């Protein structure tokens, strides 16, 4: 693998951090969820090519993820 980037590679490949993310596939795109300090999941980003999906209020970045898991 060759990483062709302007960022210093030590920053890109640095392993020490406590950010926890998971991916949830939904009917309108993949939602990237991040865990906060209290263990709750919130929406970090939506990955979808349909611009209308980005207007869904429950997919807005910062929204708490309501689903059971």
């Amino acid at each position, binding site marked *: 693998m060759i990483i*062709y*980037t302007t960022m210093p590679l030590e920053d890109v490949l640095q392993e020490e951090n406590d950010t926890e993310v998971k991916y949830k596939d939904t009917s309108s795109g993949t939602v990237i969820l991040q865990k906060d300090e209290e263990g709750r999941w919130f929406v970090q980003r939506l990955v979808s*090519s349909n611009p209308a999906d980005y207007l869904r209020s429950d997919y807005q*970045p910062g*929204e708490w993820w309501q689903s059971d898991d």
Partner: protein
Amino acid sequence: MAEEQPNQPNEPDQQSDETAQGLVDKIQALGETNVPKAENSDIHVITVIGQIEGHMQLPPQNKTTKYEHIIPQLVAIEQNPKIKGLLLVLNTVGGDVEAGLAIAEMVASMDKPSVTIVLGGGHSIGVPIAVAGDYSFIAETATMTIHPIRLNGMVVGVPQTFEYIEEMQERIIKFVIHHSNTTEDKFRELMFAKGNLSRDIGTNVIGKDAVDHGLIHSPGGVGPAIRKLNELIQEKEGNMLQ
């Protein structure tokens, strides 16, 4: 910014407490209470942000655009008759060469009209993606860094590794010159220029410079990009009718 009115009385019952809390959460998260609803669009948008990720998963502090998310979306856009065009928005620092080239090749080989916009930055492997669309835009303040590939990982045989990197670089150069109006000499000159970047060799081209070098078609943002995409869609539909 929305601030709570100090004089407003608190709602006594449980249910409106919950809705009020929901509203406060929304204001805290978004700075507003509601976002508008929209009809399904016939233009689909893909954003390429942060590091482009391919064979290896990068540590999670990186904001990444994943190959496995983008490629199926491109296939879906290409085969869905309701989708007429693709807008690709770039703000990337580069990333995996093979994943970047794969996305660029996919966009370049699509039959449906595609327009790319570089906002903020389209660096390193972002350059071939930026030139892959039928038409490309760059925001006035956006930059593209063109520099040689650097080595990471283990070197077993020096001459072989050197040749491999050289080949990788050739693939990028060939792709960019085939899909933009720049010449090979010009692009190599930008890539190997000395004294422009403080820690590296290469060039940082800003907004209109990218247009002058022939890399990007036109300066502009989202408005001109969507106008151009609609124009390309109409052109294509006109051709199909004839």
